[in-house]
């Protein structure tokens, strides 16, 4: 499995997003923490990958670096072969604005905006977005467009967050513990929404979780431990989210 580390130099030409030799060190001296220790990965268009690992394994750090929120101490992130690590502050903002969609564990909706307006927040600033109503339809919330976050359940709020993330038609969708704050039943509805937008929009979708059950819906499962990729497995047959329970 660690075979991939030996392919460090070659980049899969079909890859939308690649990581090469990613290392992240926090602090220095005695308090030094090595969150990533040389990670190489390639994500192909339309792929749904699940990053699995315990707390502190480095998966969030990896996601943040892939999304242009954090920079690696060493190594590179390549988007269509272009180095994201070399981007300026302005270019990173544009990268997040046009290319990457984020879904957070705690939804991070703007309380003062309705579901539709939360989505519009993103569509107003991107180039070729879906209509907010379309995006909400895609996650099954067509009937709740005029509700404020306080009037929505946790699962509904997370689906609004997904609609907001995908309304810009991102090429990469990064989901950090999207079901972490939800019960199993509601979580499944959210996973269905993620699976559907992955299928219909074809965005590289990376889902971080420490919930192993979710791995069954992925094309590929990447196991992380101690800042490294410890194993990678391809699912021959994927389960539909509705078949997953935890």
């Amino acid at each position: 499995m660690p075979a991939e580390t030996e392919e460090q130099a070659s980049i899969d030409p079909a890859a939308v997003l690649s990581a090469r030799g990613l290392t992240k060190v926090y602090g220095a001296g005695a308090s030094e923490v090595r969150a990533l220790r040389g990670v190489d990965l390639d994500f192909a268009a339309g792929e749904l990958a699940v990053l699995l690992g315990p707390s502190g394994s480095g998966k969030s750090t990896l996601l943040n670096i892939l999304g242009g929120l954090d920079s690696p101490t060493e190594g590179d992130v390549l988007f269509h072969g272009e180095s994201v690590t070399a981007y300026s502050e302005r270019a990173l903002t544009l990268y997040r604005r046009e290319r990457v969609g984020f879904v957070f564990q705690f939804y991070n909706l703007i309380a003062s905006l309705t579901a539709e307006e939360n989505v519009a927040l993103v569509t107003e600033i991107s180039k070729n977005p879906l209509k907010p109503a379309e995006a909400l339809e895609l996650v099954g919330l067509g009937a709740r467009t005029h509700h404020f976050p306080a009037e929505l359940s946790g699962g509904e709020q997370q689906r609004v967050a997904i609609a907001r993330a995908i309304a810009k038609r991102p090429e990469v969708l990064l989901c950090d513990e999207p079901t972490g704050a939800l019960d199993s039943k509601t979580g499944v509805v959210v996973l269905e929404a993620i699976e559907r937008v992955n299928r219909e929009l074809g965005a590289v979708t990376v889902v971080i979780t420490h919930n192993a059950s979710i791995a069954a819906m992925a094309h590929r499962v990447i196991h992380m431990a101690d800042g490294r990729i410890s194993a990678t497995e391809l699912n021959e047959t994927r389960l539909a989210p509705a078949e997953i329970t935890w």
Partner: protein
Amino acid sequence: MVTGMRALDRKLMRDLWRMRGQVIAVAVVVASGAALLVMALSAHTSLSVTAEAYYERYRFAHVFAGVERAPERLAASIADIPGVQTVETRVVAFATIELAGVLEPISAQLVSLPPSGEPLLNRLALKAGRLPDPHSRDEAVVLEHFVEGNGLKLGDEIGVLMNGAKRQVRVVGVGLSPEFIYAVAPGGLTPDEKRFGVIWMGREALEAAYDLDGAFNDVSLALLRGTDPEGVVQRLDPMLERYGGTGAVARADHPSNWFLMNELEQLRTMATILPTIFLAVAAFLTNSVLARLIALERPEISLMKAFGYSNLQVGTHYAKLALAMAALGVLIGWGIGAALGRVNTALYADFFRFPFLYYRPSGAEFAISAAVGLGAALLGALGSVRSAVILPPAEAMRPPAPANFRANSLDGALTARLDSPTRIILRQIARAPFRAAQTVIGVALSVAVLVLAMQWTGVIETILDSQFSKSQRQHATLGFHEPIAYDGRFALERLPGVLAVEPVRVASADLRVGPRVHRGAITGLPPDAKLQVIHDVRGWYLPGARGGLVIATKLAEKLNVEVGDTISVEALDGTHSRFDLPVAALHETYIEMPAYLDIAVLNRELGDPPVFEMANLLLDPAEERAFYEAIKEIPGLSAVIIKQRSVEKMREEIGDMIWIFTSFFVMFSAALAYGVVYNAVRVALSERGRDLATLRVLGFTRWEISYILLGEAALLALIALPLGCLAGAGLVYVMAGSFDTELYRIPFTIRPGAYGQAMLIALTASAASAVFARRRIDNLDLIAVLKTRE
């Protein structure tokens, strides 16, 4: 428990340090209020103490009276009036002065010194040189202002035109007197140290010059402690009447003292209204800072309570935080206030030329400012602290209920066309209207104080315009020792450069209606006068007074008369003629309380032939020099007033003071706006930091999220601007009302430019603080928000 309190106090110190930006914002506003209070009160106290000491040490008299000519033996009778301690007679006269190299005419008041040298009352504070030899006829002590204003030095000679005879007088001393703290020429409004002086000479010299051998024309009285000066005035007047008494005045009505007390009163007004504004805003700020802190510290509060801290201890902890912020402000305010108080006192002392200066804050101003500063903070903290106290421990463990926004019909119509960031701004304001109102009120009050500061130049210009353009159109006014026959004006007309001459008569008089009496003067003008006209400041002119007296509305108020009523007049001259005059018309004025009468009627009532003792002149500017040369030769000339010079002097004198005060106000008001906006932005950032970081992750640029954060503050500031202008107009109205004296009325007028300047300064201060607070946006932790639940 002791160690527990120590831990809480450590938390207090760290909280203060962590929130230092906001702590400073609150402290700055408290400091502004405290500084204003300490500055105004300490200057007031110090000047009062200094003036009192000056009066005491140099024996400023309690009652003053002028007569035409009274025998010296009358002094003994005056001394017999109960309550009179000391009587001193003098010879006092007005004269014109010639200085080498000075073209413009100068006038001076001549005051005699007793044969013993040192006067008993109204003593001289000698700044240089010595007193004149009592028997010398050409030695003089000259008022310091005049010496400095004209670059004179000991030994210099001055040409004095005494009663028509020119005499060279040598400066042997330079001095000050409590009688001339505010040395104003007759007919002048502000001191002019270049064109008006006071000259003290031996009694013999002046007696001889003014033909007052064995007689006096001025008397000063010191009274025993506790004696009512008005009672003495009432006994003195009848004694002086047959000698041409011009009416005695008590110290309170003495012009110099009156001006001084008026200035001190203004300081008192400043010490009450303005600090109140600042401290009220400080209370708002403390409220919002603490409310936010307590919202953030719900888990800590529950923890404290779970550990067994009492409600009182928790409440005290947060109250201490409010007090600490205010205490910092009070300390800063003390420092700034004391320093500015000293500067302010020194400025006034310089303006009034006290021979010494006690900067003696009583200590009360510090105590008062601390009490109100801390009190305001506690008051502001009350609501927030209460919410911390009543929070049940279990509930405090849970995060606060999510912000509950719900749609309403108004909102739909309002926000439908807006972009999302603007929508966020509007909904935040709609959700917390009380807090938005605090910001609006804070900025509005800053604008209001600025409008108040900026309107002074407008006020002064309005007064000057009304007095010197609309009412007085002459270029110069000449005054004579004795009334001169009407024909004398033809001689004046023949002087070089004189285009027109109009006679004026000013008769000192008591105006009486029933028990009400006003000691003033009646100005006699020709009914067809064109150089001095009767102007009503409300915007119209009144025809010359043929039918009776045309008096100022303020005087009508004092005497409680209306048009058609009769006023009993008693002339305060040798004749003491008594006659009745109807009130023909009223007019509104800003300065003094004039009463006009047809000069022919005035002459007749005084039992005089057609005479005048003042003349208004219209001059040809091209022949100014020849005119000045020519009037030096006119005998009996007591005063020359050049209008242009008076206006310039008044502008300069008042302008300096206004400039200094305006600077203070701009500084404090800017601090106010800064504190309010900084705090508003920081609280918003604290509440919405997570939202803003989320937006950054979603691809918003720093400037785009700055718009959300600062747009709210900007919108509130914009709402505050017109409100501030309104409040400023209200403040000006109140201030104008509080300056309603017999000498001055402040017009309620505000230049449009004052509003503009006020808004610009408040906006600049707001923008500066917003930019400062914005820097925090650059440090938003984008990663943390992904993982935390609010």
